[in-house]
């Protein structure tokens, strides 16, 4: 069948394709007052509830509430964490976090989509969340815009507190390798 898609050398091996459904080791995320303030500040929130514990408690929260999108910060370990992306990175594990395994295939990454669903949005400073990331899908196709192949992967990271799910963070990531002249 005729096609205008140039041929390319696939980068997805059978070994990688079998990772669909594989889940990462657990990752600890600490929800802290400084972390909530930093997130709220970066996102431009002015509401005092994200900055002052007294105001948060006056409004019925246990402590500073996490703004939508903030699920704590991965507990950083210089010997185990990804230096650029802060999540735990076990080179022997096939799936580590929302950026793997495509991070190991292509040099450049672009965010494709983000779908955050809350099951229990009552997340406050002092909470400790445990996440596991599962590779839901990975595929490869030619991109005219990138003038080369790109890998598109979707991961679902489930966050739990005290073993009860609080949120699912579904992230699509695009990996590619720049082609000279594009």
């Amino acid at each position, binding site marked *: 069948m005729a096609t205008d898609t140039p041929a390319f050398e696939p980068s997805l091996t059978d070994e990688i394709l079998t990772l669909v459904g594989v889940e990462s080791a657990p990752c600890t995320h600490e929800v802290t007052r400084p972390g909530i303030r930093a*997130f709220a500040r970066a996102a*431009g929130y002015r509401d005092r509830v994200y900055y002052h514990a007294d105001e948060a408690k006056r409004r019925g929260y246990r402590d500073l509430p996490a703004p939508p999108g903030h699920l704590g910060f991965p507990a950083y370990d210089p010997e185990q964490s990804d230096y650029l992306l802060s999540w735990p990175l076990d080179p022997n594990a096939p799936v580590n976090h929302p950026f793997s395994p495509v991070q190991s295939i292509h040099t450049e990454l672009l965010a494709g989509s*983000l779908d955050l669903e809350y099951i229990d949005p009552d997340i406050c400073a002092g909470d400790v969340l445990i996440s596991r990331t599962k590779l839901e899908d990975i595929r490869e196709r030619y991109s005219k815009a990138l003038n080369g192949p790109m890998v598109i992967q979707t991961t679902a990271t489930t966050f739990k507190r005290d073993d009860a799910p609080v949120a699912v963070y579904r992230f699509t990531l695009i990996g590619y390798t720049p082609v000279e002249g594009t």
Partner: protein
Amino acid sequence: MPDQIYFEDVGEGDLLPEITERPTTTQLVHWAAAVGDFYPVHYDKDFAVGTGVPAVLVHGPFKHALLSRLVSSWAGPQATVKRIACSFRGQDYPNQDLTVKGRVTGTRSENGENLVELEIWSENESGEKTTPGSALVALPSRP
């Protein structure tokens, strides 16, 4: 305390008060530190250009956070944000206006909750939708 909007006061087609930000590279560095994403395409221009883009890029999840702020600010302190989803269809760059907008697409009561569905998106200075998405919030009933 921010104003509260009630389920009975919401109807399909209602527009959310839009928010315009003009993110600077300083703000992107704040964001990088807040979420631990130090991928250099977001603050190192030479690196960014080397990947084939014209300038450093605004983080996708930062735009998701702006859309979340749009929704939560509109919905008020007694509301519950249940879902925020978006696709990163176009690149956005620092020092350019980035406006987030939203519109009510449906309302329903389900399992004791007053749910409101929203279409949300960001626009660049040219009015192009770079980050279309949707949201679901639960609103309180008017006392």
